[in-house]
């Protein structure tokens, strides 16, 4: 396990370094940030002065070295457009994006597990079919469309909830902040929950058809007991990677939802930064997201190995596993 962890961590750091380098290069290929700053009337001298101020007139190698030096010290630099610290700005935006992602994710799991389970367990009943169809529908509707529908019903037609925005006092009044997040959370949860329910349904169908479950029932265990003792433990392993992927997707999906609801989160920061060619901000947000997504994948892999001993032996690449496989096939 220690060797595995070491190898996996090395891989994680390598992926991050590659992502950082690729991001730097792709942004530079896409264009010169000076052109997002100037306005009609700017002269050639103005353009040159702006390039010098941003430091983009220097050789690209020099810029890259500076960028890497900053990254190593965990400094994400300052924004090209407003001179604010990118790190501070990301931290501030997380006040919105993190609760939005986590609550949406928790709610989507709460929806997906019972819905997916019933859709599989009662697949031959009318409500099992209905649940199954609902998850298909929920997963097929674009997330912004769900947002617009919810805004129309709950904000415009009935003034239950705000149509968008976030309190300027942040979380000083949690009820107020939660009110602002309610419709965005529901939007993400409906779409992400439907997706997740599809996975839960097929994982459940898979488990329900297993011989060990029938055997457990034959030994006198109740259906619930058999599911809990054997089904969940076997079914949860694939579900963990799905959950990690889903959490990443929820986080990334918040980008669109933040735009629909005018929420000042990371997604909004990224879109604005791309529009303004504010390289340090784009790099900061994308790298942060990359760390998060890769970190989740890492955590999921490790958790799976803790839960399922078979993964530890067969995939960690040690000799014993190899010999056991040989013994089994013999």
């Amino acid at each position, binding site marked *: 396990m220690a060797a595995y962890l070491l190898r996996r961590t090395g891989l994680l750091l390598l992926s991050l370094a590659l992502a950082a380098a690729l991001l730097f290069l792709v942004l530079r290929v896409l264009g010169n940030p000076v052109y*997002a*700053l100037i306005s009609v009337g700017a002269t050639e001298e103005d353009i040159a002065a702006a390039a010098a101020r941003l430091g983009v007139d220097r050789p690209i190698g020099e810029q890259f070295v500076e960028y890497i030096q900053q990254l190593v010290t965990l400094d994400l630099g300052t924004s090209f457009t*407003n*001179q604010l610290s990118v790190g501070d700005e990301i931290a501030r935006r997380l006040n919105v994006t993190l609760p939005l992602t986590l609550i949406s994710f928790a709610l989507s799991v*709460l929806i997906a597990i*019972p819905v997916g389970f019933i859709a599989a367990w009662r697949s031959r009943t009318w409500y099992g079919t209905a649940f199954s169809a609902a998850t298909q529908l929920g997963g097929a509707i674009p997330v912004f469309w769900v947002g617009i529908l919810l805004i129309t019903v709950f904000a415009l037609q009935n003034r239950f909830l705000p*149509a*968008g925005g976030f309190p300027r006092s942040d979380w000083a009044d949690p009820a107020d902040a*939660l009110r602002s997040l309610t419709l965005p959370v529901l939007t993400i949860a409906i779409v992400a929950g439907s997706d997740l329910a599809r996975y839960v349904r097929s994982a459940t169908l898979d488990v329900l058809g297993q011989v060990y479950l029938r055997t457990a029932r034959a030994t006198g265990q109740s259906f619930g007991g058999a599911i809990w003792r054997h089904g969940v433990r076997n079914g949860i392993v694939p579900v963990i990677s799905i959950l990690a992927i889903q959490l990443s997707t929820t986080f990334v999906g918040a980008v669109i939802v933040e735009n629909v609801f005018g929420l000042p989160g990371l997604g909004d920061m990224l879109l604005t930064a791309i529009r303004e060619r504010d390289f340090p901000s784009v790099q900061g947000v994308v790298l942060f997201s990359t760390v998060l997504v890769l970190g989740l994948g890492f955590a999921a892999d490790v958790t799976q190995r803790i839960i399922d001993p078979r993964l530890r032996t067969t995939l960690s690449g040690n000799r014993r596993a190899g010999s056991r496989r040989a013994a089994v096939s013999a």
Partner: protein
Amino acid sequence: MPRRSLTAVAGGIAVAAALVLAGCSSPSAAPAAGGAADPDAIITVGSQNEPTSLDQIGGGSSGVTEVFTGNVYEGLFRITDDAEVEPLLAAETSVSDDGLTYTFTLADATFHSGDPVTADDVKYSLERFISEESIAARKRQLSVIDTVTVVDDKTVDVTLVSKSVSFTYNLGYVWIVNDTATDRATTEDGSGPYTLADYRKGDSITLDRYADYWGDEPANGGVVYQYYADPTALNNALLTGAVDLVTSQSNPDGLAQFDNDDFTIIEGTSTTKEILGLNDRIAPFDSVDVRKAIYSAIDRERLLDSIWDGRGQLIGSMVPPSEPWYIDLADNNPYDVELAEDLLAQAGYADGFEFTIDTPDSGVHSTVAEFIKSELAKVGVTVNINIITDDEWYEKIYTNHDFQATLQGHVNDRDINFYGNPDFYWGYNDADVQTWLAESEAADSVEAQTDLVKLANQKISDDAASVWLYLNPQLRIAASTVTGVPENGLNSLFYVAGIAKAAS
């Protein structure tokens, strides 16, 4: 799973949903119409025009003008909503006989830090505005400044390189900042009626009333600018009472929902000209006949109807009616398909030709491009549409002049002078126009200036230097409880001190 557990799960979901929905009990009520104005009411302004930087010299965002000019920072002069120049921090002005030296006597104003506004601050601010690091929008016009000399605490002399009859007008856009202020990325030290209380990038800018303001007290207790990237989100905010007014309605399709007693639609004149810019350097657009043919082949009235529902105005040159040198040229290049065909034949393009319009993906440009494409097809001219981003526009078209035709909304006021610069992106090159425009700036009087610019105005229109499609309307929408909203918004100016809201 036993049925009981299922019920428990369902119950859990309900509880979780209820928790998330917590706080739904206090829906935001729409403000009651009528009633006396509340002098301490906070006005929430919805806008799509977020400043990219909080410093005027830091970039070309008109959003910075909308929030700060005249509200937080003040200039020596102030441009009124009717495009007139009136004194502000410059209480008195005298000009030397040769027209080259301006002497300003300063009003007794203080900055928000308590420092008095002095001649040193004026010197610092003007020099900073035209410095090398500045990329302020009006830097070029102000570069006519030669030296700024402090005479005494309250008197400053400004000497110009050459006469500039628009000098005081242009000064209306230059902020006088405290020369001791340092961090302008997040703080300010201006002399206006409001202080910057809070800046949340991507969300809002909050202005508090400045208690010791030297001028008239504002009609409200403070202003919050709330920013929206999406026009629909902005309109929803107005519909639900989350904002009191929107500074500019960029999406004409959204107008109908505000056409009722709860809202006031305010239509003023803008300075935003929708232009089909032609590259006059290259064939076939180096031919006046071809340019005029293109102009006459486009039914601009129908275009304006379809884009702005008939609001806005047809213009026939770069000059809107709010400027002193306006002449009605709307019919100078009339919509006349036969005329267009004749002109094309005359220029040797009886069978038409093909060209590409580079279209920024922002605003209504893509729609306008499609319209032009279908109009020009009628006279045998084939249009290809190439969609680019705004910053690509600055690189490809503005800087590299690598284009045949393009669409752009030119927002600045008094910008006919671009036609006097043969190196400008559209490459219009006419010696007479260059002379008239250069001389107009050095004219002895506003009248003489006006006469000369009118000549240039007529000539660029006769030559169809560009195709001026229409002048955007300036549409603002306010809740009916709100009064005193500026109508015109020249060059994004938006003075908030006069806005009042009825007590709810």
